[in-house]
Every structure is written in C-alpha cells, then in structure tokens.
C-alpha cells in the first residue's frame, strides 16, 4: 500500500538499470515492485466489483420496492419456488468458493498440480449450479406455467394477486438469469486460468490473475447468498398452504 502512494517521491530504484535485473519477469515496467503491481490489480478489480454491486443493487432495490407494494403476490411467488433447489445450489456455490480460495492458496504455495485440480473442481461446481438451475428449476417452472412472457397462467387460488405473482417471477427470472450469466463468464475466466496454471504461469510471486478472478467468483457467490433468502425463503415458507 505504501508503495502505491509513495510513488514519485524520488526513489530511483525502479529506474536504475542495475536494479531491474533482480525483478521478476512478470513485473510490468510501470510498476515499482510485485507488491505494488498486485495491489493495483486488486484495487482495479474491487472498483469493477463496486460497479457490479450497484448493477445488482438496482435490481435488489426495485425488488424491495415492489415486494413492499405487492407483498401477498410476492409471498405466493416465493412459495412456488422449490427451496430444495435453492438451498442445494447455495451449498454448491459455497463449495466452489472454497475450491477457488484453495486454488489461489495452491498458487501462493507453488503447487501447480493442485491449482489445476482445484480450478477444474471450481468449474465443475459452477457447472453443477447451472445444471440444477436450468435443467431442474427452470424446466419445472416452465412445466408449471410460471415463465412470464413465455407461458404464464394465473391460478384461481391467487385471486387478484395474479399480476403480482407474475411480477415476482419476472424479478426471479431476470435476477437468476443475470446471476447465471455471471457464472458462465466466471467459468470462461476459470478455463483460461486453468490453462495458464497448467503451463506453470503462476508462482508465489505472481498469481494476480488468479486472485482477481477469485474476487469475481466470490462476488457472484455473494450475490447468490442474498438472492437465495430474498427469492426462496422470506415469507414464502409457511402460512400459505400446500406447495413443496
């Protein structure tokens, strides 16, 4: 951190040709040292993630507003989701976050093979999440006529709440599909990292791509950590008879 701020305060080490010989080949010329380079990359990723927080935040804020306006419809909608899929997928994502964190740790301790295995595991867990979501959850929703714009049928027992149940499902599909899109991008990133790791591109001195992609992966996990209770749990699990 100090290196980042102290830049330009008259140190000549970075510009001294003799000093550059001791530099890692991974050090880009605009940075003084590996720590500064790592900090800069890390900081840049967090700035991007802050924009992602607000990107998802807009959806969360509008969900909160409409939920407060049309609570009965949203509770019926929540009750129609299968909490078993939601909880299983939460656990799957948490496992993938662990393997991601351990993959970075393997880079820090210089274990190349472990990096590759853990990255592949992370991708498989991500794919398992998407598999559960697409082939079980969304398929069931479709069969139950709960996909707005495609096939959505109001049920008599909803009374006048029909449009609000549909609004809940619009939120559900937009939020989960944007989350799923992030997962797909994450798996794409990890496939490149796996290839790099297999070629021995990362070392205890240089693993910035792994670290920042890990930040992205964990962020996507955090989004799900909030989507799970908001969509599947609150208000939808008791009180309204029947269901799952």
């Amino acid at each position, binding site marked *: 951190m100090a290196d*980042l701020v102290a830049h330009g305060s008259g140190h000549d080490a970075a510009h001294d040709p003799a000093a550059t010989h001791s530099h890692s080949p991974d050090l880009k010329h605009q940075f003084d040292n590996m720590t500064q380079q790592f900090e800069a990359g890390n900081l840049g990723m*967090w700035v991007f993630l802050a924009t992602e927080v607000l990107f998802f935040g807009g959806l969360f804020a509008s969900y909160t507003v409409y939920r407060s306006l049309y609570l009965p*419809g949203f509770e019926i909608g929540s009750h129609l989701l299968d909490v078993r899929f939601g909880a299983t997928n939460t656990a799957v994502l948490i496992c993938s976050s662990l393997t991601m964190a351990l993959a970075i740790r393997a880079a*820090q301790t210089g274990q190349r093979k472990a990096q590759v295995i853990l990255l592949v595991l992370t991708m498989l867990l991500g794919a398992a999440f998407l598999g559960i979501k697409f082939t079980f959850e969304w398929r069931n929703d479709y069969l139950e006529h709960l996909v707005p714009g495609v096939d959505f049928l109001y049920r008599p027992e909803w009374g006048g709440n029909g449009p609000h149940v549909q609004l809940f499902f619009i939120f559900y599909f937009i939020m989960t599909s944007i989350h799923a899109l992030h997962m797909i991008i994450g798996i794409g990133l990890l496939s490149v990292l796996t290839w790099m790791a297999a070629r021995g591109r990362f070392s205890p001195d240089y693993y910035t791509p792994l670290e920042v992609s890990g930040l992205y992966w964990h962020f996507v996990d955090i989004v799900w950590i909030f989507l799970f209770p908001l969509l599947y749990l609150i208000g939808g699990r008791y009180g309204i008879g029947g269901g799952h």
Partner: protein
Amino acid sequence: MSSHVVPLKVYVGVFLALLFFTGLTTWVAFIDLGPLNTVVALAIATVKMLLVILFFMHVRSSSGLTRVVVAAGFFWLALLIAFTLSDELTRQWSPIPSSWGPGTSQSQTQ
C-alpha cells in the same frame, strides 16, 4: 512479494460456517416470526457475505485503500436503497384507475 498465505484451517472453518448459516437460514424460514423472518434472513446473509469478503476475498489482510473502495461500494448501495425506499414508503399513493388493470390490485383498496 508479501503474499499472505491463509492457513488451510481458516478456509475450511469459514466454509463450514457458511454451510451452517445456509442450513440455519433455511430452517428459520419455516418458522413464522412475522416481520422478523426478513430481518433474520438478511442478517444471516450479511454475516455470510462478511465471511466471504473478509476471508475468501482477503479483505482482512488487504490494504487500507482497497478496504475504502470495498466500503464505498456498499455505502453507495445503501444510499441507493435508502433513498429509493424513503420515497416509495412515505409517498401517499393515489388510487389506480380501474381501467388500468384487472381491477383487484392492492393499491386500489388502500
């Protein structure tokens, strides 16, 4: 370069805590606590988020500058939600004309 290698035990401990809280939040959701259900669910989600941010995302050992950026992201999110809700929840809603919808919406009866 100063890389902070977190002990394996810490990662596994955080992982187990996250699984525990997932089970807890699912279990609590089936108990009717009234408005507290939402509070409990969001509180548990926030604890899980903090565990992920501090340990998996290494904010516990990151620089002050990074921490400020992280905090700023969530501060802006808080502004977004607080200002939106302060409008929506305090506004005197006009009744919706019956010709706009199926005529049985919540707002009309208020």
